[in-house]
């Protein structure tokens, strides 16, 4: 089936969602999102963790209210969860105390159907999804793949017009995920389900290109739609096709340029203290540097190829690459990662010299690390409570990012011996040497 542009089933207009900072000021996590889920399409929503893509899906499902903006479902405003919209969850969200059959029937509870009718519909959904024979099993007896099939059956049993899927395959192993994707696409192509449109949230670029008719790329902080990329490939699609790879690379380069822009912008604000640091450990960064320095990359690699070789998803690879970029051991640019001179030196050095080099880069390129060190130097006793920096960071970013940033800087600084952290006292301090 090719992407036919029908009328939208769900339309989001000027959606914003903000959290309140500790100071009371609003901090936007989603800004000005316009999105139309058209009739007959699978729309991908691709972004890194923290881009607000799952929040956006929940807004479309009526589970969360936006701070401002309008949601239209079949042309009428959506006030809450509505008939005809079903959600498939990343964590499956099955009731552990109900059997497969009861779980599927639970989806029908709200419709108040007669018992026999409910049983009949549940049974046919179970047959459709390939769960026949598992009716009396409890979720904990099933493998992850079978559990997610129950999740699908429970969504399909209400014969939804719109199916919203929140990273439905990301908790599964690679092979199981591929089987489920293929089975789902078969049902979709053969039109065996009444569903008219699907919204698929994912952080897996290949999954988006494989399944969707169109993919929206979300940028982070705040989440905005950075690009709208049509995927005009015939199904079934082949991951090794040049056209397929070209779209994957295009998305990588969009994500890279977004990441770079955000690093640059945050670095300029508030003396660099607004710089959110990625979730990247020293070991991961060291490993990536060494991989990058060795064959076949010898200093430079396409992110898509690198991710494939390491079987990394976007959320695995990007934080490490960003960490290296911020510390100037490697340089990110349009979908590729390249070692810098310092990065090459780092790989060649022994432990002590590596630490010295890391120390130097940390103090020079991470304003937060330099700031904490300066505060500790100035203080009597050379200690400072963590909460002081926590609240400083929360002026510029949401709590989750502040927490992640402090964790990252703590790990890096411990390795580089810039300062120490005592978790019992929740205090930073300068070690006695």
């Amino acid at each position, binding site marked *: 089936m090719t992407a036919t542009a029908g009328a939208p089933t769900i339309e989001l207009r000027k959606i914003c969602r903000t959290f309140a900072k500790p100071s009371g000021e609003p901090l936007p996590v989603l800004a000005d999102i316009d999105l139309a889920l058209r009739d007959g399409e699978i729309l991908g929503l691709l972004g890194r963790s923290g881009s607000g893509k799952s929040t956006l899906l*929940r807004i479309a*499902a*009526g*589970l969360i209210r936006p701070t401002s903006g309008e949601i239209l479902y079949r042309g009428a405003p959506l006030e*809450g*969860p*509505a*008939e005809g*919209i*079903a*959600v498939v*969850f*990343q*964590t*499956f*969200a099955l*009731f*552990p*105390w109900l059997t497969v059959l009861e779980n599927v029937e*639970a*989806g029908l*509870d*709200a419709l*108040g159907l007669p*018992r026999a009718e409910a049983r009949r519909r549940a049974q046919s959904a179970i047959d459709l999804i390939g769960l026949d024979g598992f009716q009396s099993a*409890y*979720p*904990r*007896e099933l493998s992850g793949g079978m*559990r997610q099939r129950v999740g699908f059956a429970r969504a399909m049993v*209400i014969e939804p017009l719109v199916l919203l899927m929140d990273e439905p395959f990301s908790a599964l192993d690679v092979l199981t995920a591929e089987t489920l994707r293929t089975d789902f696409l078969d049902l979709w192509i053969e039109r065996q389900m009444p569903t008219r449109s699907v919204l698929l949230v994912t952080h897996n670029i290949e999954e988006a290109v494989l399944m969707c008719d169109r993919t929206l790329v979300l940028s982070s902080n705040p989440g905005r739609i950075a690009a709208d990329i049509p995927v005009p490939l015939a199904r079934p699609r082949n991951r090794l096709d040049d056209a397929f790879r070209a779209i994957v690379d295009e998305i990588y380069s969009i994500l890279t340029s977004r990441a770079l822009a955000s690093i640059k912008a945050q670095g300029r604000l508030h003396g660099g203290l607004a710089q959110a640091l990625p979730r990247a450990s020293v070991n991961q960064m060291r490993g990536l540097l060494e991989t990058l320095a060795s064959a076949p990359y010898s200093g430079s690699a396409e992110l898509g190829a690198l991710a494939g070789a390491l079987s990394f998803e976007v959320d695995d690879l990007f934080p490490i690459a960003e960490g290296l970029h911020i510390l100037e051991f490697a340089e990110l640019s349009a979908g590729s990662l390249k070692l810098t001179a310092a990065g090459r030196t780092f790989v060649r050095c022994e432990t002590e010299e590596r630490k010295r080099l890391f120390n130097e880069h940390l103090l020079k390129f991470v304003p937060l690390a330099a700031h904490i060190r300066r505060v500790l130097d100035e203080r009597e006793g050379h200690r400072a409570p963590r909460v002081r920096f926590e609240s400083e960071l929360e002026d510029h970013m949401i709590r989750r990012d502040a*927490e992640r940033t402090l964790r990252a800087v703590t790990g890096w600084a411990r390795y580089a011996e810039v300062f120490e952290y005592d978790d*019992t006292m929740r205090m930073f301090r300068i070690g006695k040497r």
Partner: protein
Amino acid sequence: MEHHAEILRDGRWYRQAPGWRDLAATVLVLALILVLGSTARQMVAPLGAARQPDITLSPLALPFYALRTTMRMLVAIAASLFFTFTYATLAAKSRRAEMVLVPLLDVLQSVPILGYLSFTVLFFVALFPGNELGPELAAIFAIFTSQAWNMAFSFYQSLRTVPRDLDEASRSFRFSAWQRFWRLEVPFAMPGLVWNTMMSMSGGWFFVVASEAIAVGDLQINLPGVGSYVARAIAERDLAAVGWAIVAMSAAILVYDQLLFRPLVAWADKFRFEQTAAASVPRSWVLDLFRRARLLRRVTSPMAAGLASAARARLSLPPALHGLIGWGPRRRIGDLAWYGLIIAGIGAALRQLYRVAGAELSWGDVAVAAGEGGLTLLRVAVLIALATVVWVPIGVFVGLRPKLAEAAQPLAQFLAAFPANLLFPVAVFFILRFDLAPRIWLSPLMVLGTQWYILFNVVAGASAFPSDFREAAASFRIGGWRWWREVMLPGVFPFYVTGAITASGGAWNASIVAEAVSWGQTRLSAGGLGAYIAERTAAGDFPRIALGIAVMSLFVIAANRLLWRPLYAFAERRTRLD
């Protein structure tokens, strides 16, 4: 007197309620106790209790007495369950109700149950004058209070921690509030609820025994039951009868456990939230029997289907009610009015407290009660320390041997459930026989029943201790004291704290029956706050009973706040890897 700790939410510790609310709730409860105590004196005079049935000491009557005692337990559990479903649900769903209900519950569970037994007996006897129902309800109420607070807390915490994805799934399927309650909330809370009910069983048996035979001033209550049987045996110095009562009680507890709790635990296992299959599944032959009996199933299946469709019905509250109980979005004016109401209530309580207590009590009384409290505190501290030194090594030894642990665990749980007050006469007999000092030798009775909590929690902790840690310790040849200090004690610490909290709370409660005992006409007193309350109860001196309860509650609350909760939080934080 169970205890709950702070909730861990996104890696940070949140106190359950801000300090001023606790303070306010404490004031409210204590004022209520003191005011009730001071006014109860006027009620007692015209009370004619019902004709008391004679308690016979024949062992043949014991099965009947045990049955009566067990019936009280059952009724109390049903009442606790009803209370739990309503009180905790209201607290979890309504922001305004939560403000009042949660701190109140927190204080209530620190109030010694045996202390206010005298008030509740009076209250219920006055409610049904000349009728046996009064004392009967008072006994049931005592059991109820030993279980309801725990169960309600457990249910409340479950309601507040319903997993987000299941909550979203329920909302996206548009469950009504009623459907959500039975489909999601009750099943999710079930394991915690069953566990807490089981943990409060010990209290239940203890209090049913203590509340069956009670004398408040001139009012003498004897309900047919094991407790009255023992009281009679004590009065007649009949050690053999005490022995029979112990046998009968053991049998009753075993039967109760096998017929009610084992099946319940085995059945509740399906509500476990972990998605992985468990290594050991609790089993119950009774449940298996019920599940396999076809005829029985045919009889019960229409009933089950009826219940299931009742749970599926789309009942929901009229929307008008939502605003009233603070269900809907925040409304400033409503909140302000609510705060005003709370403050006015506390003000009135304080004023009443000042007026009534001022007329009846002097500062000298307070000083006496506080001094006695200090003595009991010393006892509790020494005894818990002793129990720790004895049971932690034994618990670790047992817990590290799976076969032994499997055999020992039910025994420890049985000992914890057994009402220790049945054993008191035996101890008292020996104290008299060998002419021991009551101030010292009565003390161990306080932890006789509750020390087992330390044992079985430590056994559970040692059993759950990861074997790779032990192997690592062995391969680095860590042994002796270092092994205890660096490997095992940190490993069982959180479990130990849980056990010790229960044990010390129970010891405070038990002090009321342990510090003052009798054998025939001989009365022994060890001094302390428990003896203070017991003696004032026998004398019908209500203002001072109330004072004693208030002081003891304050001691318990202070111990929880200043020692146990920080320890618990510390244990949780220290032993987490992420």
